[in-house]
């Protein structure tokens, strides 16, 4: 097969730009900004990183592409481009909220690893080949493990990273085992070809084993019960901006590729037209195979995430358990397996990621001044830092799913898509009812945080929190984004639906 390197470079230009930016951040920090004060180093290198992300976003906006390179290893279509732009946006905000932090002297490395993790996610989004899926998953995970361990002065950070790494290594082994079984059954690494090869073989036990193992691996990445054990410790121990990135970017990319692998027949059809119908038929027939597995995981995640979050006293752990619960809601979107469900899932994941980054940003602000993230440290925050408190209120209410905010519409679209898919027999209705009931439970702990901020008395002797202007502006921007996506969800959903249509799902 002939490969045009130039063509490939053009297709992968956004990724290349981000890689070059990462290298630039490394080199600039090593050579020219080394002797400056840490704060300036963070600002200069952070600006380089942001410029790279913006350049990549602009490239994708200016040069929309639709191509399939190297037999599905790198697929660029409007849908993957939208998801990549969203990922870069999340990366941008992660970089911006970390600029105020003081946990490390290795600023160039920190930013470079964030960017390289983002590159891994971008390749992951574009992959329709199990080899590429695995390698980009590993690139992302490895960068995130190191990001979790970045605070070398804090033993909790090392513990968080070790737990994340050990669980992650095991999950990667399971994923690889599952993928190799899939390869053994079908003789192909391309998702579309796999679907076509499996079509006439029926649902045999080995395929179920492969599915279970793949679900297990992805379940770890999205922190769904029972593969969630790392999440609370990793979120709590890791430096706050790293935790924000683990909770947002990695989740968006993982859910997208999870949905893609599971709906293999629908997305894989794009590879070659012949496989399209055969492929989707094949996986329709397998839907009965993987839906129960995912349903069990979703139910457990929603129950355990919401119920355990109630008793948490550390805000980061609370967000971690709420993340587990949100993974449960999003799995309902995966189960709905339709083009519309993908749109709702991406909308949910992106708005959730944005909100979580904001929430972690507020935690970082409080943590920097009071040295811990206990609920008690938030007492009376509204009088000490009114702007930050207002932002936190918006994030918490959005996570809880209060109507004009983005979180509500995310849930609404996912549940609507699930009900529409199972319409004839209301197959997913019980899950949706459970999810709505559990979101009611989640109000309790989100409001608990707000109660501390707005109602509880200030601790004696507390003075006004000085929050840097940049930090306030960034948090404000994220909050405005959450409100805007909530009030005008069509901004994102419309684009997603159009691009899914264009991508031929």
């Amino acid at each position, binding site marked *: *097969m002939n*490969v045009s390197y130039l063509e490939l470079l053009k297709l*992968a230009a956004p990724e290349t730009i981000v890689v070059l930016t990462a290298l630039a951040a490394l080199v600039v920090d090593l050579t020219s900004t080394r002797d400056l004060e840490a704060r300036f180093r963070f600002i200069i290198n952070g600006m380089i990183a942001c410029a790279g992300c913006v350049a990549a976003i602009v490239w994708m906006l200016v040069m929309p592409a639709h191509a399939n390179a190297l037999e599905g290893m790198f697929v660029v279509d409007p849908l993957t481009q939208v998801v990549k732009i969203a990922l870069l946006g999340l990366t941008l905000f992660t970089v911006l909220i970390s600029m105020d932090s003081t946990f490390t002297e290795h600023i160039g490395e920190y930013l470079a690893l964030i960017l390289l993790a983002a590159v891994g996610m971008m390749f992951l989004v574009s992959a329709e080949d199990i080899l590429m899926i695995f390698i980009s998953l590993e690139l992302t995970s490895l*960068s995130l493990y*190191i990001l979790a361990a970045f605070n070398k002065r804090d033993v909790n950070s090392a513990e968080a990273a070790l737990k994340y790494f050990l669980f992650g290594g095991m999950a990667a082994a399971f994923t690889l085992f599952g993928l190799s079984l899939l390869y053994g059954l079908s003789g192909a690494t391309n998702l579309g070809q796999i679907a076509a090869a499996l079509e006439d073989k029926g649902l045999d036990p080995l395929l179920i*084993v492969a599915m279970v193992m793949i679900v297990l691996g992805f379940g770890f990445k999205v922190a769904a019960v029972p593969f969630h054990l790392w999440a609370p410790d990793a979120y709590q121990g890791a430096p706050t901006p790293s935790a924000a990135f683990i909770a947002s970017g990695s989740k968006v990319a993982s859910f997208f590729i999870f949905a893609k692998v599971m709906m293999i027949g629908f997305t894989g059809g794009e590879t070659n037209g012949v496989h399209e119908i055969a492929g989707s038929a094949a996986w329709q027939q397998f839907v009965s195979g993987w839906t129960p597995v995912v349903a069990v995981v979703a139910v457990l995640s929603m129950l355990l995430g919401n119920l355990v979050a109630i008793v948490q006293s550390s805000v980061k752990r609370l967000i971690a358990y709420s993340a587990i619960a949100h993974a449960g809601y999003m799995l309902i979107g995966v189960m709905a397996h339709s083009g519309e469900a993908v749109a709702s899932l991406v909308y949910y994941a992106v708005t959730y990621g944005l909100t979580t980054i904001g929430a972690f940003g507020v935690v970082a602000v409080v943590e920097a001044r009071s040295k811990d993230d206990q609920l008690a440290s938030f007492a009376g925050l509204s009088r000490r830092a009114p702007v930050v408190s207002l932002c936190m209120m918006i994030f918490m209410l959005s996570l809880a799913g209060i109507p004009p905010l983005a979180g509500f519409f995310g849930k609404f679209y996912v549940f609507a898509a699930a009900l529409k898919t199972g319409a004839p027999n209301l197959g997913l209705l019980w899950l949706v009812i459970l999810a709505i009931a559990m979101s009611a439970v989640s109000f309790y702990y989100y409001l608990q945080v707000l109660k501390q901020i707005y109602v509880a008395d200030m601790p004696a002797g507390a003075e006004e929190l000085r929050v840097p202007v940049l930090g306030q502006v960034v948090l404000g921007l994220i909050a405005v984004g959450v409100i805007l996506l909530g009030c005008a969800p069509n901004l994102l959903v419309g684009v997603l639906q159009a691009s899914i249509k264009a991508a031929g799902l």
Partner: protein
Amino acid sequence: MVTDILFYVFAIATLVFGALVVANPFSRNPVTSAMFLVLTIISMAGLFVLLHAFFLAAVQVLVYAGAVMVLFLFVIMLLDLKEEEQRKIKKTGLVAGLVSVGAIVAIFIRSLLASEPSRGLGDPQLEGSTFALGKLLFTDYLLPFEIVSLLLLVAMVGVILLSKKDLK
């Protein structure tokens, strides 16, 4: 015929040595485990030879059985082994491990029995030469190849960062 016999010899050797790496009834010394890991890797190299993947077999022996295992042994010898040797096996851990292994084995036996014997991929069309491998790496598998280089960069940055002592 000969290759069939050799396949079973190497396959059984891989499995037996692999089991001895994690559960050796005679010795609890980590160095013994590491040595059995070397034997496992060499038996796997034998399987690669049977598949005509000579280059892969050579790399397997050189890199894994050679370089990587030397590092393993270094690390093992730097750690305190006495404690590990005297550590008692926990009963709950043992039972849980056996149950999960049993479950996986049962699933595999069941699925092997359920699947038709003729299935599988047929004769592999493997070309094990470095020429073919290099050509593939720079055409069909160019992108994964490049991403692996990024992966190594990340690993390198991470190792230097985490192993270096912060002076402040």
